[in-house]
């Protein structure tokens, strides 16, 4: 019933006639009769806009929107200033194609140039691309950037997000490249194990800062070890944390990647998100995907254009280092608007609030009976606690509108706090935890329970 075909059937018939044809059937003469469809019985009849709206709203209503979110693990609940949504919904940005025709695409090109610059500012590195699909594919692409004829083994820290590891493994299955895990010890990468694993065939180490457990790795020493062995250091980092933490550039990482979702993108059930990638000047030409560069037009006016294109699949075909074509430009625009609106102090405030509130939450949860697992490690805005009955606790919290920590095992939870969580909310969460534990009579079991 709904249709976006504007011409009337009379007009369509006239147009067919002008093509020298008498029916639509004549357009499809090359399709063998045996494969022509008589209909699409499995697709419902078309609907009006009102009906579609009702149907989809009904679906959305079946989801539970949590008011109080204490879960991160790769997707983070942050405040998004209203201006971000407004600018990202401007039709020009939303409906444009990749800016192949630079003369009429300066707006989108400049926005990507600005995004690249801001990613360099955050990471302390010298070259960034226009984005890839998400943080995990950014990590996988970064591993491929480091591979050469002599070095093809990839090391991954065991404290890297398992979802990132899974994607890196899938990409490596494609290239028939080996991936090896470097074990963690007490919640961060074990330097001794890393030293042993760094054989001459190792091309890179993929690390994460803060790591999956929220802990801060000693990036300086990881970096020294990796470079001593002649390999490259890739770090997957949380962009918000970079407002406070030592930058990848400062500890000599070769490539920094990450999930850009915390920079103004909603949780959105997992996507669209934004993979960002930055590298040293030396590795600039190995970056995959679109890169925007500055130049001038024939009148000498400053202008922007897609550049270094001969790296890419449309020119290099099977010799290209990546097949990426579409990226996440509109998400990169959101991130750029977010960074411009927040500014350096705003972003620092977000980062400071995240880590301060996470520490407050950790204290309150410990008081309530959930001890911290990695006691002697610093963490940013996530941390792991013991929990005698993680599943039961989360169900109890859920009924009260609280999304609890992510279950890592039956008795371990990965918690997260951001600027969105108020002191009152944190205290309420801790009180609920206490209530549950005492009701279940599990309060005293504490840490011993986790070992069983």
């Amino acid at each position, binding site marked *: 019933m*709904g249709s976006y075909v*504007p011409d009337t059937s009379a007009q369509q018939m006239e*147009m067919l006639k*002008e093509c020298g*044809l008498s029916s*639509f059937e004549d357009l499809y003469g090359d*399709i063998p009769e045996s*494969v022509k469809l008589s209909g*699409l019985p499995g697709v419902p009849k*078309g609907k009006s806009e009102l009906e579609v*709206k009702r149907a*989809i*709203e009904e*679906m*959305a*209503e*079946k*989801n*539970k929107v949590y008011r109080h979110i204490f*879960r991160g693990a790769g997707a983070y609940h942050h*405040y998004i200033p209203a201006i971000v949504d407004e600018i990202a919904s401007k039709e020009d*940005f939303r*409906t*444009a*194609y990749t800016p192949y025709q630079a003369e009429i695409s*300066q707006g*989108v090109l400049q*926005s990507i140039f*600005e995004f690249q*610059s*801001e990613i*360099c500012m955050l990471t302390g590195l010298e070259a960034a691309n*226009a984005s890839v699909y998400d943080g*995990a594919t950014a990590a996988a692409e970064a591993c491929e950037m480091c591979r050469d004829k002599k070095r093809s083994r990839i090391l991954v820290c065991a404290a890297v997000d398992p979802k990132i590891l899974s994607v890196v493994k899938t*990409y490596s299955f*494609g290239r028939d490249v080996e991936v090896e895990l470097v074990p963690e010890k007490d919640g961060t990468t074990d330097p001794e194990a890393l030293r042993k694993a760094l054989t001459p065939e190792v091309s890179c180490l993929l690390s994460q800062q803060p790591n999956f457990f929220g802990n*801060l790795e000693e990036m300086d020493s990881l970096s020294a070890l990796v470079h001593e062995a002649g390999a490259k250091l890739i770090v997957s980092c949380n962009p918000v944390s970079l*407002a406070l933490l030592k930058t990848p550039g*400062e500890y000599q990482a070769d490539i920094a990647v990450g999930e850009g979702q915390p920079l103004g993108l909603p949780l*959105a059930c*997992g996507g669209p998100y934004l993979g960002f990638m930055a590298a040293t000047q030396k590795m600039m030409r190995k970056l995959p995907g679109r*890169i925007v560069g500055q*130049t*001038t037009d024939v009148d000498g*006016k400053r202008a922007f254009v897609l550049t270094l294109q001969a790296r890419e699949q449309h*020119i290099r075909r*099977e010799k290209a280092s990546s*097949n*990426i074509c*579409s990226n996440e430009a*509109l998400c990169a625009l959101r991130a750029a608007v977010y960074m*411009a*609106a927040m500014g*350096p102090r*705003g972003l620092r405030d977000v980062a400071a*609030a995240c*880590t301060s509130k996470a520490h407050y939450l950790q204290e309150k949860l410990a008081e309530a009976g959930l001890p911290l697992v990695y006691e002697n490690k610093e*963490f940013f805005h996530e941390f792991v606690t013991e929990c005698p009955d993680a599943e039961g606790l989360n169900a109890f919290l*859920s009924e009260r509108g609280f*999304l609890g920590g992510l279950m890592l095992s039956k008795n371990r939870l990965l918690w997260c706090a951001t600027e969105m969580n108020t002191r009152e909310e944190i205290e309420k969460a801790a009180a609920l935890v206490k209530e549950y534990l005492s009701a279940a009579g599990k309060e005293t079991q504490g840490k011993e329970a986790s070992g069983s």
Partner: protein
Amino acid sequence: MKLVFERSAEGRGTRYLPECDVPERLPAAALREKPLRLPELPETEVDRHYTCLAGQTHGVNDGFYPLGSCTMKYNPQINEKMASLPGFVNIHPLQDKESMKGCREVTEKLEQLLCEITGMDAMTLQPAAGAHGEFTGLLVIKAYHRSRNDTGRTKIIVPDSAHGTNPASAAMAGFDVVSIPSDDHGCVDLDALREAAKEDTAGLMLTNPNTVGLFDPNILEITRIVHEAGGLCYYDGANLNAIMGIARPGDMGFDVVHVNLHKTFSTPHGGGGPGSGPSGCKSFLAPFLPGKDSPQSIGNVRSFGGNFLVEVKALAYILTLGREGIPEAARNAVLNANYMRVKLADIYPMAYDTICMHEFVMSLEKLKHETGVSALDVAKAMLDYGIHPPTMYFPLIVHEALMVEPTETETRETLDEAIRIYREIHEKAVKDPEGMHRLPLHTPVRRLDEVTAARNPVIRYDFDA
């Protein structure tokens, strides 16, 4: 236009957050040495900056956008509304299943509809773009051959007219690429295919309608040849818009497909993304799909499912069109392309002068030879008329190619006006070929120095420089 950094002044900015209500507690070690620099602007300046940038960006609503192989159809507004429902936007991807039934209904429904439209048995929505879907499908093919210990199948056959992503995806999946020539009609050369398809063939990648805008009439023979050699057939859905609801890749002998929600199913391109490239396959390959609970699964190609909000938009579109609207859209996309083709063929020689599908390719080789005016010049001339030029210099097998894809959502009046402009430009090219090299004249910037941009890349602004 000023850069956002050039509008920045130290100390400016808008505050969006309350004072922190817990004691500040920063990590003792590992702090940034150099303070962070980012632009510092009040919100008014941020807003004006981006309004200014939007004004220098050409979107589908700014005018006709017949960019070949990109399917720049209208992006319905209701889709955007649906994708911004709080019940979707505020869902954490790691919520327990019970609390996200609505999201699951969206993805399951969309998977089922895409299976129906492509003739496949199973679908994954994980891939975030077409090329990502290609890579996924090829890994599925690789895993399938490996599971049978058929390890000698190391080659993927790709026609020379293919999109660059096809050979690049095959290489990423660890295959060697065998390029086969096209015949005089721009279709697969059957003899070349018979010769290439053998015991080392893992599969064939094919776009159909192909990249010159023609439906390959030998399609059943093509897939038969590949299957007989023990290979699988991969369908690149870039051009599905021409035949959706008319014919299905699954019925043509294809085993694996990807579709582009951001082409065929009306989700916007966003200046380069986000897209979505679901991968589908026949049931015997289903255990290998990513993100499925199966020991044979290739794993995951993305962190959290797919680009969910894009999927909501595509679902809204398919539900709106329904079983009648889908073939209606395809038929009119093909009609509009043929209408323009017929009205331009006398002055712009067609690379293949026959009934086309949703797009057609012109070759300006003769014009270039006679006047020195190239496909690039003609494309640039269009910019002054406010219409987006066609795809230039693709496919590679046609010299001085311009590829036009009007889509089904344009009115006849728009097509007539575009035809008039194309003809006017041709007249100009013949009368004043020298003048053509100077165009465009009226765009925000004019032709760019791409050589300097690539020789001495400046790809970021540096406050300290």
